[in-house]
């Protein structure tokens, strides 16, 4: 092609392009300005509101991690230290021993230790806990609700859209400031 006649076309395109670019930059700047008021310096992380949790078992199965980042945590100062812990034992345990048939945790992640008559302490082994909430339901139904689910931030990948949150029947997941990443129980009786 002859370059002569194309030159004006070229510059016309150039002009158009410059104009579009300018407006795009202005748009981006405008967007940044508009959103600046709504942005916050601190980022947020996902957490479970224990008051809304319905113990459905989704936390164990829906997390993108092979072993869920949701774990059962134990509020020791709410616990009654019961001998017959309904979080630890099957609903109608055979005996009150640590034998497999009496425990309800599918991965035996609750450790039961004798403190003194008649008190026992229960601790969660987070490497084994899968966040299935079976113990949480037992503890909430009969006991003080000292066992409850929380997202553990040393494991959570903080997905943009939490895969558990979108299927949570209790609508219990929400984003919380990274500076206060846990929603711990502060129950009164």
């Amino acid at each position, binding site marked *: 092609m002859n370059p002569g006649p194309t030159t004006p076309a070229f510059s016309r395109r150039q002009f158009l392009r410059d104009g579009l670019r300018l407006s795009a930059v202005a748009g981006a700047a405008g967007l940044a300005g508009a959103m600046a008021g709504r942005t916050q310096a601190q980022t947020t992380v996902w957490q479970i509101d224990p008051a809304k949790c319905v113990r459905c078992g989704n936390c164990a199965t829906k997390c993108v991690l*092979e*072993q869920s980042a949701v774990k059962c945590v134990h509020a020791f100062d709410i616990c009654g230290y019961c001998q017959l812990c309904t979080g630890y034992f*099957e609903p*109608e345990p*055979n005996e009150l021993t640590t*034998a*497999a*048939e009496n425990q309800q945790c*599918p*991965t*035996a992640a609750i450790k039961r230790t004798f403190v003194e008559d008649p008190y026992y302490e229960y601790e969660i082994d987070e490497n*084994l806990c899968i966040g*299935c909430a079976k113990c949480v339901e037992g503890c909430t139904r009969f006991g003080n609700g000292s066992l409850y689910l929380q997202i553990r931030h040393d494991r959570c990948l903080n997905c943009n859209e939490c895969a558990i949150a979108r299927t949570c029947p209790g609508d219990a997941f929400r984003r919380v400031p990274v500076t206060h990443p846990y929603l711990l129980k502060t129950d009164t009786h």
Partner: protein
Amino acid sequence: MATAPDSPVYRTAVSTAWVAGVFLVVVAGAMLYQRLTANSNDPWKSPQLLELKEQLRASPKDEKIKERIRELDLKFRQRYVRRLALTRTGGWLLLGGSVILVVALATAMETRKVQPLPRPDPTAGDRAQRDRAVARRAVGVAGAAVAVVMVGAAATLRSPPTVGDRGGAGAAAEAAKAAVAPLPPASEFAANWPQFRGPGGSGVATAAEVPLSWNGASGAGVAWKTPVPEPGFNSPIVWGDRIFCSGGTREKRVVMCFDLATGRLRWDRVIEKVPGAPAQAPEISDQTGYAAPTMATDGVRAYAIFATGELAAVNFDGSLAWAKHLGVPKNLYGHATSLAVWQGRVIVQLDQGESGPANSRIMAFDGVSGKQLWEKARSVPGSWSSPIVIEAAGKTQIIALGDPLVTAYAAGDGAEPWRAELPGGEVTPSPAFVGGLVLAVNPHNALLALKPDGAGDVTASHVAWKAEDDVPDVTSPVGNDELVFTVTSDGKLLCFDVKTGARVWMHELKQEVQASPAIAGGRLYLIGSNGVTIVAAVAREFKELARNELGEKIVASPAFVRGKIILRGLENLYCLAGETPKPGTP
């Protein structure tokens, strides 16, 4: 530059790629297997383990089962932990293998790379032009495909649920609440006026104190008078502090709710966009109109049916619970049969056709959801009589009249315990249940008193008595444990003995009567079409106790509730709460 195909670099790269590929397949296969078998091998899902726990529950002392559970539990937990470990390491192994595979493949490709030697293409211009044309076509086709998918997806979803949309949200919520809220007890039904001709549908009010006299012109005894915005021949019903009635024209059908204390129109609800209803309502004769059937309520919702075949349930706050279209009834004058309720169900008698059966049927709908619970075909043509629900012979029966049958249906499932033949012609009066007898009328034949405890065809066996002269043609009979009263549309008032059927007396009212008579506060209320209500004593001789002018034409039957009478004239609704002498004092 290009290495020979069998150079050692190439061979090494290819064999490395093979090894890496096989390695990847093996690792991926192992991981896949672990995942797929997780179902039966995870400690919480293993059917084996669950079964054993079940067994232990049955025999809690069996040490063997316990041992087996402990064994399996340990095994499955170990397997689970191994699976977790394998997933972690397997992931990294896959990653490493992939890197090696890609590097090997890239190396192999590099060694075999042939430097291209492109030549000038004289057809470039044509090719470019052709390519663009093909691309245009392809993009056009792709765009069309996108459009088809979108339209198809939209088409499969033409009918979003009626409840739950913007307008119906409240209604559905109300329905949900109602589903939980128990129905009011029977005593509540007796204290209100829940359907055509009151509780039980036999025109007898439980109220002890009922106004005796009023005057529409002077306003004496009239608590309030309210214009009814929409026309209809149906009678008002009352529950608590609410009066319900319906009205309708070809353009719109409306349910209205008035305040019992003040007469203020609390709300009205247009019944529209009923699924299945024709866009243009059918034409109905003015003689009957669009809203001749009287509504019914179960204390939670009010139900209305229109001559168009639209059946609607409206919550007490005016929101629509549900509505459905039963098909336009083929009725010479227009459908006029009122609704009945029983235990939260709506009973719809839908007789149609001119002579001989034509899809006549009786149905029961669930009041909460509108779901049809049962339906029975009726071999009768159109009728204008309303069904009543009675408790007799230990059963709850629905009594429905038609030509030529009196039929009883079991309220629960629509089974037919008995029927009796009563041929004649067009049936308008409704049955009544008086002194243990079902009173059934065929205007062109007779008034039958039937014992409701028969089975099968009881025409020959269960007729207690029969009256053939001056049979009422429009209004329904009314009575107490002793006497039965009927009135013809030209004003012939008859009194029978309920036990024997013997005529006790007859009186000419000398006025036209369209509204069914009622007994309230121990008195007989006879409302003439001219608006004059004659109050007579329920006695073995005729005695006029009062004669009250309203000054407006009346065809609807009155409602009596807690010392008040609700009357619907052609244009206004009246609440009569006049001087109320103690019963017994004339």
